[in-house]
């Protein structure tokens, strides 16, 4: 399964991609919202993990744009939010995310969410 991981912090990016690769996923990465949109359009991943606070175009905008695009709208998106403050969760779902998870990431919990979206 190909996952596009969008995260601007290099350590978070490194940690998460290594752990996902270890679990058998193919991971491609982007470090800002604009790059994420470009990558999603060209690679058409099976799932997108999107950190919400991103430079250039932020996560919410990027999700909205991808969900409005015919070619990408079907790709499930899991939004990653920092500290599950009420506002973050609602905004993630309103932007069109299919699910959300909180950081720091509990890898088992995240994998569970990835799998349940993949099974849909």
């Amino acid at each position, binding site marked *: 399964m190909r996952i596009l991981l969008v995260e601007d*912090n290099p*350590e*978070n990016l490194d*940690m*998460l991609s*290594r*752990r996902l690769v*270890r679990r058998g996923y193919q991971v491609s990465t982007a470090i800002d919202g604009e790059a994420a949109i470009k990558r999603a359009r060209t690679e058409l991943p099976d799932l997108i993990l999107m950190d919400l*606070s991103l430079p250039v175009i932020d996560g919410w905008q990027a999700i*909205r744009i991808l*969900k*409005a*695009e*015919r*070619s*990408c*709208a*079907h790709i499930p998106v899991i939004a990653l939010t*920092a*500290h*599950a*403050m*009420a*506002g973050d*969760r*609602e905004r993630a*779902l*309103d*932007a*069109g995310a299919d699910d959300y998870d909180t*950081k*720091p*990431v509990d*890898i088992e919990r995240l994998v569970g969410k990835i799998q349940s979206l993949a099974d849909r």
Partner: protein
Amino acid sequence: MVFTPGSSLEPESHDPARVLLDSSPIAAVITNPAGELLFANRRTYEIMGVAYGAPLPVGVELYVNPRRFGELVRKFAANRTLVDEEVQYQLPDGSTIWCLVNWQNIEYDHQPALVVWSYDITHQKAVETAIEHARDMAEAASRTKAEFLANMSHELRTPLNAIIGYSQILQEDIEEAGLKGPVSDLKRVEAAGKHLLGLINDMLDISKVDAGKMEVFIEPVNLPRLFEEVHALTLPLALKNSNQLAFHIVDKLPNIRADYTKLKQSLLNLISNACKFTQNGQVRVEAQVSGGNVRFEVSDTGIGMNEAQLGRLFQPFSQADASTTRQFGGTGLGLAITQRFCRMMGGEVSVRSVSGEGSTFSIILPTEFHESSEKPGLTILPDAPKIEEAGSRILLVDDDPEIHHLLGTMLEREGYEIDHAFSGEEALVRITEQRPFVVLLDVMMPAMDGWTTLGRLKADPDFEHIPVIVVSLLNERPMGMSLGAAEVVSKPVDRSQLVNLVRSFSGAHRVKVLVVVQNRDERAEICKALPARDFDAIEAESSAEAESKLTTLPPNSVILIDSAIPATEVSELLTRISAEAALKHIKVIVQTAHNAGRLDADLIRDSGAILLALGQNRQAALLELLNSFRR
């Protein structure tokens, strides 16, 4: 009136009463009903800063603020006495002092007279001002600190996440390499990192709440789902101490409304406490609705608490006592946060406990959040509106009951319903209870005058769109129009002119929304929420029905198409709307879910339609969007 020499004043006297009066630290001035000075004691001349026997200012001349004098005169007339009023006097030399004054009716020299007692409190006033200033500065400093902490959040958490994450990766690396040794050390690093993260999160929560920057999002809460999530999260914790964990919902519960995240965090806090302080015991979580409240009880068979421990329980960082913190871990902030969260949701958390036997924590929340318990930073997502349609309601604001009778009867005969307000303040209250379609506002009113009221009405986003017809005595049209009045008429009011004017405002400004939603219940829900925001809802079950109603829509209307309508039909509708001149200005909102991919993106873009992704807050987002069209 100024005292002139040759009156009955005698500077030297041995009359005991006089001696007493002249030694008083309180200035005493006696005047007759005409305002002429009859007597002033020695202290009066002292505080006025003039020589004994010199002319003294009396009455309104004394007052820095003449309106204050008028206010006191009115009060005195009403109560026959004036007690401990703070006033600012202006002295003959131009300086000002603050005095505490009392007025009394007396008989002086067989005449009715007024005595004014004045006690100089200038010094106290200065101290008071200084204290207020110091308090404001302290509050500002405290807010700044809280804001600083809140902003540090990202900075503090990022490196911690790296510590936790990499120690987890290292553990995986080691296990993969088949080693065992260093794993437990790394587990300690991970645990310490998580503990620190918990502390930071809790501290930031508390300072956010205390800085008034914590928002509350009230929304419908699915209790079974909430319990499932909480159960999954707390089961490992319960098993750690070999505890049994049980969840129970009493009866089939109606929907409750609360802040989901805060309720979940509060329950997690209570349950994790219960699990921590119980060994080989039971933790039971129960939810029950009675009256207008929902009650959550988390009870355990753990070590319990004594009176002293219970007293300190909800204070930050006083986890029962210091030894328990060391033994049981935790941040010591959880309960303080839970208490704040419950209060923000209009509820409360309480506890019963017996040392050695166990504890029961209870959270009580209202099932429907009431605006009276509103706190700053509150966002309430609209549910079913409680306000009826505004179509025929007029708010009449005038202090004169005669006008209410005259105009009210006249307008009622035309078929309108009238809300009566006799003051600006009352008008601002009435308008929130029942939304009128127009306000008739008299300009000449005591207390909050008409212009101020007009300003307040136009400044409030909830009512700024309601037209206000100003009724004034003089020609004040430019003033009225510049303050935002829709029209200005002058007294005496021409009856037919007023009726025609009112009629011109009814219905004209209500934006029509064509709600094209297949599902009947969903459609009804949306249509119910619209009139409260002054939208007229028109229903359509299908795109065909919508098409038939298109020509009835005025240009400023809005069409809402839901995600169940097939993409091809949506395209047809959009094509038609873009093509016809009469329909071109109608705004279209298309709700999207998984159909987004199938909609014609080019057509959407060209037609200017707006996509609204379905999410948790669909209704709030929709209303927000509709409201934005109005501006």
